């Protein structure tokens, strides 16, 4: 895990001191709201529909157990006893009071945390494969690269006022769990034909009002060139990205309007013209950063659990929530934050502390927030799985639904978000309740339902196998459906169905689609496979068939 050096620590502390003073000046009126607003946003503090919201950065989604305990402390002391894991691997608090925020930031700084890069038209907190450093199919841990990008981007003055926000996601696996094709820039660690490790750079992806799948900017970039190449890309975006219309300001629009060939040429020309020695980070510095992410001391000779002697409910949880690890004898544990009665991604302080304890006892004191709004313990001995599960049961965190229909991604929607057009949380709850039976979920198989409360698509509905967008007309909420979206390496934007539904009709319609799929699938086809085989019309007909 990355530890702040003295410069990082000094910077974050000075930033907190500045903000403390800014809050004092806001409260006594020396700063107007217009002057203060950009300052609070630079520190992750939004004014939402009912209250302030503080978004805390969790760089590349990785955090230490003491950091999770600190988040629990903040939620208990300054908020309402819970936090919300976001689709960008951060944590939000829904009810902070302005005058407490400097204290919250001070507490965060004491564990190397902050709320920088969680708002504004800057390069946002970099997101990452939550199985980084543990995945069996990984070339190398992508987090040192993500950390390098964090260091380069956090204070870069040229990129503090971009045309629009800018999101980067990284992975080192061929199985894309970071949605790299749905980001402004996606980076995949790859090997070229000569066996060298470098980066595949994807550009111009994004969801929101204009969903676009990213395209290859450079199929193989040598490691030394990473920062100069990103810098060249950002310069092109900064220069040519539109600033006259915020709906056309993201890099995806620039890439689309320029064409990928011409855009690539612009970047390559810029890259050729800049002096990389000012920017490039050599192998020695990369190796230094990588030491922070060195694999923990895995033990050998671990015997797998005798599953036959374990209770069925535990075995089901293992089948669903536990994934193969690169190291023999270890496993990756997914902790679901998708209790059907809760808002997806919400976690209470008791649960946070329980997870922190489990991370200390069984996963080298480290854990991850996922963009699917769950938590991962990345390095668990297989013979400790039962102990972990017992701990999760005690904390009411044993839902066995990872990647199943109950594992719904859902933004806060109208219940909390100032930009929302409709609620999303109650829709997620209604669907989760309808499909609550574990065996039914298991029988349906892999299924990603994603719900957004407005066109901004924070709930990634465009890339849901079933995507749901909440809208409102004349005071009534309704929900539009897309089908066939895909957030992985085979990324696709879902196909829009027709007219929207009320919440009740929607849940019935989804059930019809799911039942149709289960009846029509061949062999072990996933929902997506059957959808692709049978085509949109077949599913559309079922969706709109009256019950």
């Amino acid at each position: 895990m990355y530890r702040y050096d003295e410069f990082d620590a000094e910077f974050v502390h000075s930033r907190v001191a500045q903000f403390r003073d800014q809050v004092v000046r806001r409260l006594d009126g020396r700063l107007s709201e217009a002057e203060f607003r950009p300052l609070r946003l630079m520190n992750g503090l939004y004014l939402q529909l009912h209250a302030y919201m503080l978004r805390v950065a969790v760089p590349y989604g990785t955090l230490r157990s003491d950091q999770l305990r600190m988040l629990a402390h903040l939620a208990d002391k300054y908020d309402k006893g819970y936090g919300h894991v976001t689709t960008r691997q951060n944590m939000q608090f829904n009810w902070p009071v302005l005058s407490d925020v400097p204290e919250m930031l001070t507490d965060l700084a004491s564990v190397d945390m902050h709320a920088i890069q969680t708002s504004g038209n800057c390069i946002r907190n970099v997101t990452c494969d939550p199985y980084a450093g543990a995945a069996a199919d990984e070339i190398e841990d992508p987090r040192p690269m993500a950390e390098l990008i964090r260091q380069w981007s956090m204070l870069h003055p040229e990129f503090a006022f971009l045309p629009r926000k800018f999101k980067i996601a990284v992975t080192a696996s061929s199985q894309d769990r970071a949605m790299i094709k749905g980001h402004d820039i996606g980076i995949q660690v790859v090997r070229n034909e000569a066996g060298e490790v470098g980066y595949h750079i994807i550009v111009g992806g994004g969801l929101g009002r204009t969903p676009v799948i990213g395209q290859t900017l450079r199929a193989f970039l040598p490691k030394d060139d990473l920062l100069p190449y990103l810098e060249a890309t950002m310069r092109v975006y900064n220069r040519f990205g539109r600033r006259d219309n915020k709906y056309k300001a993201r890099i995806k629009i620039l890439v689309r309007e320029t064409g990928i060939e011409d855009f690539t040429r612009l970047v390559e020309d810029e890259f050729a013209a800049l002096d990389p020695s000012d920017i490039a980070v050599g192998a020695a510095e990369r190796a230094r950063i990588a030491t922070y992410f060195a694999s923990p001391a895995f033990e050998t000779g671990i015997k797998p659990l005798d599953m036959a002697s374990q209770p069925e409910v535990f075995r089901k949880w293992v089948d669903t929530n536990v994934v193969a690890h690169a190291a023999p004898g270890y496993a990756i544990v997914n902790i679901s934050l998708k209790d059907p009665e809760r808002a997806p991604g919400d976690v209470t302080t008791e649960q946070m502390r329980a997870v922190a304890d489990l991370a200390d006892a069984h996963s080298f004191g480290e854990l991850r927030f996922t963009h699917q709004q769950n938590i991962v313990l990345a390095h668990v001995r297989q013979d400790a799985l039962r102990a972990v599960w017992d701990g999760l049961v005690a904390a009411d965190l044993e839902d066995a639904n990872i990647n199943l229909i109950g594992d719904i991604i859902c933004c806060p929607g109208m219940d909390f978000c100032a930009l929302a057009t409709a609620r999303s949380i109650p829709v997620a709850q209604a669907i989760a309740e309808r499909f609550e039976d574990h065996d039914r979920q298991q029988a349906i198989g892999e299924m990603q339902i994603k719900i957004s409360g407005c066109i901004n698509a924070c709930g990634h509905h465009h890339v849901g196998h079933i995507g749901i967008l909440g809208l409102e007309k004349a005071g009534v909420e309704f929900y539009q459906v897309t089908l066939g979206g895909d957030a992985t390496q085979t990324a696709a934007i879902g196909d829009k169905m027709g007219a929207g539904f009320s919440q009740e009709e929607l849940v019935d319609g989804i059930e019809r689609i799911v039942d149709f799929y289960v009846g029509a699938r061949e062999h072990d086809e996933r929902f997506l496979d059957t959808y692709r085989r049978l085509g949109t019309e077949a599913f559309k007909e079922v969706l709109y068939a009256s019950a």
Partner: protein
Amino acid sequence: MSTLKHKGKGPQAMTANELVSGLSVWMTTDLNWSRDYADALLTEDETVIEKMDEIAKAAEQANTVVGAYFIDTVDAKPARYRERFRTHGPSYDTADLISES
């Protein structure tokens, strides 16, 4: 102050967020602020509306509230869905489950 969000049709109410807590408030009949929409002053009287505007501006200057704006109302309820929603807060909050347990 933004008054763009209302069409100026029907009785008007004035809303804002408290500076310190961020919570939603509405201007009351005694030209103060309340967190309860039931206390809100609704009026079509242009003179009163002007007065509300002045007081809201002054409250922003005095740093008690931020982002004050008028909303349209119909049958004593905010006309826009979003504004209706603001009057009763989230329909779901994990905080409620915690306080129940």
